[in-house]
């Protein structure tokens, strides 16, 4: 019988004197009376499970192999059988579940938005084109437009879980061309901080749920990929952009007050925040208006800044959100300022012409959040069948 074959077994369960260290069930043995092979595996496996689960350093020392990422991804079905993979994706399922449960308890309604759309929603060039009968259409970069339309349609608080498509030729550890987006949008009563508080509280409930119910999975992943446990504060730490710039200046970084944060600066900032507050998750509020999309609401008290925010896990950005412009007139002005053709976004602007409540929101990527929570280093480890500029299978 070859390794990885599926078998049915009729056996006597017998207690053992000594613990069987190499098994998960350590106190009993099966004394087989009859065995049937249900599905025979081919004798030569493309990769060995013991190798796939070995931590990287260990393999080199003892002369035993580990498996590189491309081999894993080419033979994903077998790679997913490892204890580490099983733990990662069970935890990912937990994240989704906690996201849904927390938001539902807060009175949010889950919506489904279309993925085949007629115009690029964010106004960027990174969209996939699909042939659509005699013309073409695009794959949605984000559910942004539709989330907002639902708010204008009196749904008050909505969320959606669905695929997001970005045709960015970024071959990095944290970019995929297709990923699962967890998006939130809500109307607020007095101040857009109500939106920030809702989002951060949802994140904290997810972190607590993982900390309290998925320790076994976290430990399993740590065996192969050691990392520091994820730390956070409740309520979530919220710093202002000016504070971040001051902290970076103090650390010797040269940047202007209205400059955007480069990725190395984000990482450095994450380390400084970790050093001072001991948290791996925080919000940066009041970004400069100049570096945000056209539909971001400007700060009414200071025209240089905006009512927008980013959230970071372990120093990497996981969410970019804001209060949206809900006034059609102001929206047109902001779009023109960004030199966007108003004709292309006519239906978007039209949504706000017949009564629109002040609202805001943001979205996270499921794979990136899982990767950062577990302290892993490549988003392909947390995507079951990842898609990037060089990979379309399995």
């Amino acid at each position: 019988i070859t390794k990885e074959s599926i078998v049915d077994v009729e056996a006597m369960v017998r207690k053992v004197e000594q613990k069987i260290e190499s098994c998960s069930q350590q106190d009993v043995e099966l004394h087989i009376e009859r065995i049937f092979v249900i599905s025979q595996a081919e004798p030569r496996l493309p990769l060995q499970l013991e190798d796939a689960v070995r931590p990287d350093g260990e393999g080199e020392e003892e002369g035993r192999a580990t498996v590189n990422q491309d081999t894993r991804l080419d033979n994903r079905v077998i790679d997913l059988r490892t204890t580490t993979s099983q733990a990662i994706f069970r935890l990912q399922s937990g994240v989704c579940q906690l996201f849904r449960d927390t938001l539902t308890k807060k009175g949010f309604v889950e919506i489904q938005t279309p993925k085949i759309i007629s115009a690029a929603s964010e106004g960027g060039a990174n969209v996939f084109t699909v042939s659509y009968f005699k013309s073409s259409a695009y794959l949605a970069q984000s559910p942004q437009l539709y989330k907002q339309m639902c708010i204008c349609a009196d749904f008050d608080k909505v969320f959606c879980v669905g695929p997001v498509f970005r045709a960015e030729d970024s071959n990095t550890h944290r970019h995929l061309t297709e990923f699962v987006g967890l998006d939130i949008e809500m109307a607020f009563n007095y101040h857009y901080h109500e939106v920030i508080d809702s989002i951060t509280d949802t994140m904290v409930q997810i972190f607590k749920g993982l900390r309290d119910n998925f320790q076994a999975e976290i430990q399993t992943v740590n065996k192969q990929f050691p990392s520091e446990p994820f730390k956070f504060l409740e309520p979530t730490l919220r710093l202002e952009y000016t504070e971040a710039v001051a902290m970076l200046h103090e650390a010797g970084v040269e940047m202007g007050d209205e400059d955007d944060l480069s990725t190395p600066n984000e990482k450095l900032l994450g380390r400084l925040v970790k050093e001072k507050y001991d948290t791996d998750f925080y919000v940066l509020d009041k970004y400069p208006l100049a570096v945000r999309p056209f539909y971001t609401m400007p700060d009414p008290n200071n025209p240089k800044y905006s009512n927008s925010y980013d959230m970071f896990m372990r120093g990497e950005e996981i969410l970019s959100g804001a209060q949206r412009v809900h006034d059609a007139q102001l929206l047109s002005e902001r779009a023109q300022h960004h030199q966007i053709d108003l004709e292309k976004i006519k239906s978007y602007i039209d949504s706000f012409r017949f009564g629109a409540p002040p609202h805001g929101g943001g979205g996270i990527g499921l794979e990136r959040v899982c990767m950062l929570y577990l302290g892993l280093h490549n988003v392909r480890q947390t995507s079951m069948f990842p898609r990037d500029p060089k990979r379309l299978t399995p």
Partner: protein
Amino acid sequence: NGDVDPAVKALEARQDEILRKLYELKAAVEGLAKTVTTPDADLDVTVSSSLSSQSSSCAIFKGTTNLDALLGEDLGALRDIVINANPAQPPLTLLVLHGLLCQRYRVLSTVHVHSSVSSVPPQLLSCLGPKHADSYARHMFQLGFTLIWKDVPKLEMKFSVCNMCPIEGEANVARFLFKLLAPYPSDPALATLVDSWVDTGFYQLADGSTKERAAVLRALNSALGRGPWLSGPEFSLADIACYCCLLQNGSASSIAANVQGWMKSCENLGHFGPAKLLLK
């Protein structure tokens, strides 16, 4: 007949009025009496509830402080002081100092629970008072006071991670915070006396054996026989620290006369409310 004579009614009414005025007079005299026996108190805060403690204690500490000199140049962003404390040992002295800081500066106070702690009793979450109405705009505040309940072996304070190492221990953090309110006495002997009482409070009164505590109480009694406050004529950090350490201890049973009088004086100043609230 059954009705009361209206003349008697009028007499009773005048009597009630006189009694009411007498009670008012009694309360006022009691208040003034406390003022006379408690140095530095403007008015007994416990008697007059309508008087908020806003103005009464700014004059407590003489001498000026310069935030920029103490905390470094104002770079246009909130200067946030972070304190990591174990919920099993709430730092009463720091809560009292926080109250005093709020009267002197515009302070943004926040309380967080760190993920190393699963839950914290509600009074620890509200120990810095209600959320400030302007807390959505951090840059409008002169100082940040961020208290994080965390599973730490020793209390620690962090301010500027690039220029300052963390400050450890409630006594040392208390000294740092106090200096934001008023400078230490310029006379080195007096300054040393204050420091000595602060250390005595934290290391022997709060943390010491029963014998050590009894010895400290005797020392307190004789020191308070010589003057109204521990370091002489002026209220100082020594009084704040020792009062809180005594309170935390709970040994209110056998306290000598001078110490009792001093404790009442401390309470009359009205700053120890947050500390007492926490111990309820």
